[in-house]
């Protein structure tokens, strides 16, 4: 189909642009749509799609870094502590990938998509931020912090609870990130927001800091292994970056219900397609 390099690269960039815009607007990240797009539309081998996607995750998260730190929302200690978990998880995931056949990878991806769509339907409200000093480990490790809240016109002090449960969830997020080539941003935010009861703005900011580091862990391994194809990863990274840039400037931060439901349908459809693909592939 693609006998011309130009058409191939242009098509990849085009799809990546769309993914980047949607990802920035909906906050669910591009990897979730990128890997299905590359494998279903372009028929690229799953592992190369994952390799290209994980590189684009690094690009978008590093590019977006400035905004959050500017508001002094990122808790560096918290992020560093949790990074031990996410990177550990990513290495576990990268190793797991060698054990799973391509068929199982497709199935795990399909399951993740289906769970994500369910998650989006039951969008949790802002959870209660734990008052008080948090759990003993939060104090021992000095994981708490404060940030200026414009609405309340004062500094809000916070401290996480269930620190080790959060650590475990972050490990899981790292495994998924490496295994599927995604950012696992929503899962990270969920872990910090619901499990550790951190303020949502701190969760989002810190999650963004961690996503790039998590992705780099597996990206490094895949790069050395040879699963990152330059002709594929380069246009994907550029496309997603450009799309994210456009997406954030579109100022459509909180999507309307209609867009959300449409997106949930898309996730479901992709999930089904990936599951079907699992049974098409020859075992690698």
């Amino acid at each position: 189909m693609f006998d011309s390099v130009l058409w191939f690269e242009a098509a990849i960039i085009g799809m990546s642009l769309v993914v980047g815009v949607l990802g920035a607007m909906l906050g669910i990240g591009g990897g979730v749509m990128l890997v299905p797009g590359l494998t279903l539309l372009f028929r690229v081998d799953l592992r190369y799609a994952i390799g290209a996607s994980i590189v684009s995750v690094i690009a978008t998260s590093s590019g977006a870094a400035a905004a959050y730190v500017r508001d002094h929302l990122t808790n560096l200690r918290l992020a560093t502590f949790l990074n031990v978990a996410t990177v550990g998880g990513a290495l576990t995931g990268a190793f797991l990938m060698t054990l799973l056949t391509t068929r199982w990878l497709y199935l795990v991806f399909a399951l993740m998509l289906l769970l994500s769509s369910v998650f989006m339907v039951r969008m949790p409200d802002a959870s209660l931020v734990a008052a008080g000093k948090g759990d003993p480990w939060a104090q021992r490790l000095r994981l708490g912090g404060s940030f200026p809240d414009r609405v309340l016109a004062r500094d809000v002090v916070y401290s996480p609870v269930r620190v080790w449960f959060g650590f475990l969830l972050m490990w899981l997020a790292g495994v998924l990130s490496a295994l599927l080539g995604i950012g696992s941003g929503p899962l990270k935010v969920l872990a910090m927001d619901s499990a550790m009861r951190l303020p949502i703005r701190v969760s989002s900011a810190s999650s963004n800091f961690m996503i790039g580091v998590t992705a780099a862990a597996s990206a490094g391994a895949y790069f050395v292994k040879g699963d990152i194809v330059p002709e594929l990863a380069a246009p994907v990274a550029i496309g997603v970056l450009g799309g994210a840039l456009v997406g954030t400037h579109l100022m459509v931060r909180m999507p309307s219900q209609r867009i959300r439901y449409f997106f949930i349908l898309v996730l479901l459809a992709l999930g089904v397609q990936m599951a079907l693909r699992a049974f098409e592939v020859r075992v690698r």
Partner: protein
Amino acid sequence: MDLWLSWLLRLGVLVCAVILLAGLVTSVARKTATPSNLPALTRGEVLADAGVVHSWSAVVAGLAVGSTRAWLVAGLILLIALPFVRVLLTAVLFGIERDWLYLVLDLVVFALLMSGLLLGRAM
């Protein structure tokens, strides 16, 4: 201090994007980008030599010659390296604040990242 860090990262991403874009444009203009790879890629095949980077000297040699593939690889290496740099610089920040626990913790993260590269070689 940490603001400098994120601006540095953004600059890094920009540099990578420029390198990658330049590499892509030239590869399209020259009609290269290992055309033999593309048909196989879009048939879902496993490529014999897909992304394998044989050695640092090979990359540098490729850059000197002006190989577009080497430029793409260089851009990707830089992109992947950005979070590594971020972790190191955060460690420096902790050092400046004399937060030794977190300096060590951050170096643990860095060590884990590096071991990922070893893992890749073993896989």
